C-alpha cells in the first residue's frame, strides 16, 4: 500500500492512525463490490481489523480485505471546498 506524501503529513498531524472499512451490502440482482472507505482514527471494533504499518502510520484494515489486495491501494489527500480528507484509490471491482 502506498500513502502519498501529502496524505502522510496530514495523517501524522491527525495522530498517525487510519482505518480502512469495507461495506458488505446484500442485494438482489447485483453483488456489489464497493470501494472501501478510509477514515482518520482508530476503529471502534478493533477485533474486526488487522494492523499494517506504512511509513510510521498505523493502518487498521478491515479483515474482509486481503493483505495482497493492499498492494494496489493508494491513500491520497483530497480536498473539496477547502475541506481536506483522505481517500483510497486502486480498488479492483472485478
Amino acid at each position, binding site marked *: 500500500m502506498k500513502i502519498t506524501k501529502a496524505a502522510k503529513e496530514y495523517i501524522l498531524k491527525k495522530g498517525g492512525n487510519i482505518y480502512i472499512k469495507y461495506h*458488505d*451490502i*446484500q*442485494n438482489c*440482482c447485483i*453483488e456489489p463490490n464497493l*470501494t472501501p472507505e478510509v477514515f482518520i482514527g482508530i476503529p471502534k471494533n478493533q*477485533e474486526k481489523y488487522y494492523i499494517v504499518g506504512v511509513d510510521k502510520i498505523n493502518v487498521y484494515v478491515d479483515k474482509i480485505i486481503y493483505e495482497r489486495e493492499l498492494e494496489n491501494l493508494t491513500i491520497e489527500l483530497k480536498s473539496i471546498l477547502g475541506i481536506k480528507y483522505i481517500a483510497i484509490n486502486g480498488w479492483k471491482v472485478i
Partner: protein
Amino acid sequence: MSAMVLVIIAASVYALAYRFYGAFIAAKVLAFDENRTTPAYKFENGYDYVPTNKWVLFGHHFAAIAGAGPLVGPVLAAQFGWLPGALWILIGAVLAGAVHDMVILFASVRHDGSSIIDITRKEVGKVSGVATAIAVIFILVIAMAGLALVVVNALYNSPWGTFTVAATIPIAIFMGIYMKWIRPDDVKGATIIGVTLLILSVVAGPYIEHTALAHYLTFNQKEMTIILATYGFFAAVLPVWLLLVPRDYLSTYMKLGVMLLLAIGVIIVNPTIRMPAITEFVAGGGPIISGKVWPYVFITIACGALSGFHSLVSSGTTPKMIKNEKDILPIAYGAMLAEGFVAMMALIAATSLIPADYFAINVTPEVFQKLGMKVVDLPVLSQLVGENVAGRPGGAVTLGVGMTFIFSKIPFLEHLGAYLYHFVILFEALFILTTIDAGTRIGRYLLQEAGGLIYRPLKDRNWWPGIILTSFLMSFAWGYLVYGGNISTIWPLFGTSNQLLGAIALALGTTVIIKKGKPQYMWITLIPFIFVAATTLYAAYLNIVTNYLPKGNTLLVVLSIAIILLTIIIIIDSAIKWYRWLKKGELTKEAIEASVFN
C-alpha cells in the same frame, strides 16, 4: 379455486423435490464431501470468510437472492392466467433455478469463493470469462432500469407514497451519521431508530397528503424518472456510509417482514383465485406483455423460478461462509425453493383480484378501455388503499393492492388498508433504491476503469470531474431507458438479460459436471440450459422484431443484440470445449482427478 390448493401443492412439490432431486444431485452428481475443508475455514478471517451455522447462512443467502424480483414477475405474468406462472414457478424452481444456484455455489466453494467471472475464465477459457464480465455490466444497467420503472409507476401522482419514500433519504442519512459519529457501529440502535421513523413516515402520509406540501410531492411519470435518475447520481457520489449502508440495513428487515406478512396473510385468509387458469392472452396480444405465453412467461418470471442474478450471490458472499459442503443443499437448493414459495404467494395475491381490476391497475386507462372490461372492486380498492391505483403497471401496486385486499378480510385490519398498502410500496421502493444506489456506484467504478484506458485521470476514483462525469453517464444510461420505455419494453429486456445470465451459469454448471468426470449426469444442467437458452434467445429475438423495431427503439435493439451476441459467444465457446473434452478425449483421467471438483 381456493388459494390454499396452490399453497399445498407448492409446499408438497418443493418438499419432495428437496428430499429426492436435491438430495440426489448433492449425493450422486456433485458428491459433496463433508470432510473437505471449506474456504470458510481455509481462509477464516473473522469477517467474510466465516464458518457460519447453516440456518443463519440460509437466512443470509435467502435475503440476498430474494428481493423485488419474486414479487414483481409473477404479478405481471398473471395476465396469462394463474396456471402458466404457477407451473413455471413450481417446475422451474425445482429443475432449473435450485439446480443452477446449487451447482454454482458448489463450484465457487471449490474455487475458494471465486466469482462466476473468475470461475468461467479458469474452467472454460479467457474468451468466455471476458464475455461474461461484459454481459454482467450490460445486465447491471438493464436491471436498474427495470427496477426503477417499478418505483416510477408506484409513486407518480402519489404524494403519500412519494413522501414516505423520500423520507427514507434523511432517515438513512441520519442513521449513517448516528453509526459514524454519535454511536459508532451501533447497528442495532440505528436500525431501531430507522424502522421507527419509517413507520412514522407511513403514518404521517395521509396528513401530508392534505397539506400544501402535497403539491410539491406530486409528479408525473417523466418527472419521477428524472428525480430517480438524479437521486441515483447523488447516491453514486455520496460516501457509502452516509446513505447506502444504512438504507441496506433498513431494506433487509423490511424485505423479510413483508414476505412473512404475505405468506401469513395468504395462509390465514385463504383467498379465492379469481383469475382464470388460462386467459386469452396466452396466444399473444396481452396488454401487459404482448408476446405469447412461450417464451414470455419464462422471462417475465425470473426470480422465483430461475434467476441468473443468483449466480452472482452463489459465487459472492455465501461460498465464503459455508461451514460444511453438505450445507450447500439446504442453503442453495433450499433457499431457491423458499423463493419459489414467495413467488407463488405473490401470484396468489395478484390472481385473487378480479381480472378486470387486475388489468385496470396494470395497463394505462387508454389500453384498458380497448379491452372492453368493466372494473368491479377497483373503486373500493382505491378507497381502501387511499390511492387511485388504476394505470399503475409494474407489479408493485398490484401486489400492494392484492395484499391489502387479503388482509382486509381479517377483523380489525380492514381499517388499516391504506397504511398496509403504503408500507408494501415503501418496502419495494426502498429495496429497489438500494439496488439503484449500489448499481449506479458499481457502474461508475466500471466506467472509470474503462474510461481510464482512454484518458488516464478518469481512472482515479477520487478525481471529482471523473466521479461526476461517470456517475452522470451511468444514471443517465438507466434513466434514459426508463424515460423512453415502459413496462412492456423494459421488463422483457430485464427478464431476457437475467435469464441469459442464468443460461451462462447453467453452461458453466455443465462444465463443472463434465470436469468432475460425471458426464452421464450432465443432463441435470444441460437440459435446463438448452431450454432456457433457446427460450430466452427466441424471446430476445421477438423483443427486437415485434416490440423494439416497430417502436423505433434503436437503443433497446442495440442492447438486446449485444447481450445475445455475448451469450452466443459463451455458448459456442463452452460447446466447443465440451466436444473436445468428451468426443476428442482431451479431458484426461489425470485432469479429472486433478480437478478442484474432485
